[in-house]
């Protein structure tokens, strides 16, 4: 088998390449050039930089595998960055990593695997794929603290049949130890934290690339009474408490963001909790939807614990009813349905109520 490994220059994808090679596969490493500075070059600071590509190139050389940088700047701009901006313009809190996985990595790149002479696409995600008879399942990573299955919920049978996630069985410590054993220069490289295309504050990025997100507006209380002002709704997400620029005796939280009127609504913590949410664009890993009222666990943010809920089809969308009211359910984020370790599917939250 010939494996195409998407290498970011980080330790996870580097070890993924090493594992595939040790399993005896032929391996080709690629880095996606997704974003570029104003001069058309890769950025030199932040994530997704020249230095990251260089790290990947050196790891590939160390592993003795061919390595290429593929230009995905156009797709990334159209499919990820434009949607990211549009999400904020609509008052949502988008997750661009999910769109990148859906449309670029496991979209455009996966489609190209055969043309590049390979059989399978490999990434360094902390998640697992297993096969039960002729069905593939997507499972959370063995290292629960690093689990990335949330950002892979859109994968279906056709995708899972053509990918491998070899480090899903490893803990982060094991990944680093393996990288050190192999003498890879990024063994101790810190995990990336920020959006790969943003250097510094994402709000500055939005102001520069999507000036409409910087439209000033009012901050109002639960009665609609103005209590302050802001420089743009992109600085606010449902559930946010810090940085409101408004002082009250009792802690206040963002409970609503209306981009059309540039209004941010604050409320008490009790108002933050919602019974459920509406989710659009839902896909299921197994290809078939569960029956209405199925009991599942739902994650509403990348770094939140799954909570018990029931899911119901609602026209083209799905309705999630939490067993207990949940806080911080932000439109634009994904709601991902789990049963234990297994990802059932998920979609994008459009309304929290």
């Amino acid at each position, binding site marked *: 088998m010939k494996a195409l490994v998407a290498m970011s220059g980080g330790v996870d994808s580097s070890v993924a390449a090493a594992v595939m090679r040790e399993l005896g596969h032929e391996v*080709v490493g690629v*880095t996606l*050039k997704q974003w570029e500075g104003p001069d*058309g*070059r*890769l950025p030199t600071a932040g994530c997704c930089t*020249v230095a990251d*590509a260089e790290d990947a*190139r050196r790891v590939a050389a160390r592993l003795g595998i*061919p390595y*290429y*940088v*593929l*230009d995905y700047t156009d797709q990334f701009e159209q499919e990820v960055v434009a949607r990211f901006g549009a999400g904020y313009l609509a008052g949502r809190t988008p997750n661009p990593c999910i769109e990148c996985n859906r449309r670029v990595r496991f979209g455009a790149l996966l489609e*190209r695997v055969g*043309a*590049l*002479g390979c059989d399978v696409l490999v990434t360094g995600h902390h998640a697992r794929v297993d096969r039960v008879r002729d069905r593939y399942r997507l499972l959370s990573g063995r290292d629960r603290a690093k689990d990335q299955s949330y950002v892979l919920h859109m994968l279906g049978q056709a995708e899972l049949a053509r990918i491998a996630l070899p480090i899903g069985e490893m803990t982060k410590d094991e990944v680093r130890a393996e990288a050190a054993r192999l003498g890879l220069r990024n063994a101790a490289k810190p995990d990336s934290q920020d959006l790969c295309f943003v250097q510094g504050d994402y709000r500055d990025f939005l102001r520069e690339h999507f000036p409409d997100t910087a439209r000033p507006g009012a901050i109002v209380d639960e009665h609609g009474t103005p209590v302050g002002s802001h420089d743009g709704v992109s600085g606010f997400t449902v559930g946010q408490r810090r940085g409101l620029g408004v002082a009250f005796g009792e802690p206040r939280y963002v409970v609503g963001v209306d981009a059309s009127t540039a209004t941010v609504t604050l409320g008490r913590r009790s108002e933050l909790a919602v019974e459920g949410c509406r989710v659009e664009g839902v896909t299921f890993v197994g290809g078939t939807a569960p029956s209405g009222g199925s009991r599942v666990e739902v994650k509403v943010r990348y770094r939140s614990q799954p909570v018990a809920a029931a899911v119901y089809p609602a026209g083209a969308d799905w309705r999630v009813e939490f067993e207990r009211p949940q806080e911080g359910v932000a439109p634009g984020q994904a709601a991902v349905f789990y049963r234990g370790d297994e990802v059932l599917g998920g979609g994008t939250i459009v309304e929290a109520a």
Partner: protein
Amino acid sequence: MAPFLDAEFGNPSGIHSVSRRAKNALEDARERVAALLGAAHPLDIVFTGGGTESDNLGVAGPALAGGDRGGVVTTAIEHDAVLETARFLGRLGCPVAIVGVDDLGRAHPAEVAAALTGRTRIVSVMAANNETGVVQPVAEIASAVRADGPQALIHSDAVQAYVSREVGLDSLGVDLLTVASHKVGGPKGVGVLAMRPGIDLEPVIHGGGHELGRRSGTHNVAGIVGMAAALEAASKDRERFTHDVEEARRRFETRLVAEVPGAALTVPGTDRLVQHSHFRIDGVDAETLLIRLDAAGVAAAAGSACHSGAIEVSHVLAAMGMGVEDARSSVRFTFGWTIRPGDGDAAADALVAAVEGLR
């Protein structure tokens, strides 16, 4: 060149015998390169750190000489070493004009002459393009420039052309000429700027005043000696090279057009360097094709590699009016000095197989 990496370690700027031997080797190389490029005196040869540096010095040197902010005229298909130098000079306040080319990638003498102003100090036009191989009418451009702007000097980057064309100050009719070592099999990181006598240059590398103050820095003696040998060897081998590579290219292109559906030469019917084959294949992504060819042991190119190694859409093809989509399905094969006529068939075999694998 090997002794100068080892026992003959002298710095040619010293006074003792070890240095003297290095200095002799350096000046011997200078005489040989001067003869090859038609320089009037060996001291009209400036050794640099490569073609890019020679281009920087050849363009910025005259433009900034005497504390001036002289004007620059160049073409849209130049190597970045010239274009970026022109843009840099523009930021310093030099008036810069970049002249377009026709759809076969040729600059026209009248258009270059029309861009001249009273402030123009330097006109830079490459001898042949490094992507398409299209030969530029440098001598005609030089005549037109001399007629319309006698104060302007003419520089030409002949890095790509040297291996297969007679290249010299007189044959091209230019005042300054860039040649580099690595394109003729010499060591990388060494270049030449040949010039007519009496040209005043502002240096771009400042320091201890080596190379008559035109390029400071301790000499790369081994590299320079190696370059002189490589340039001489290439000059002697030129007829054989041209003959073999022309036949290899003929075989390659005949089969390309016959056996690869949608394949078309980019610059048909133009005077182009014999070692270049530039073509487009409808519906084929060049990046993907190059990766498949690499796996098959064929090293080809498209556009130029950026800092990260991603392929950038060629500014040369854009200047020729080619759209982005067409540029993305364009590929360049170049044939080196080890190529024999039969290698054209091998290259065609690999290309045909790679394209079939994609479709």
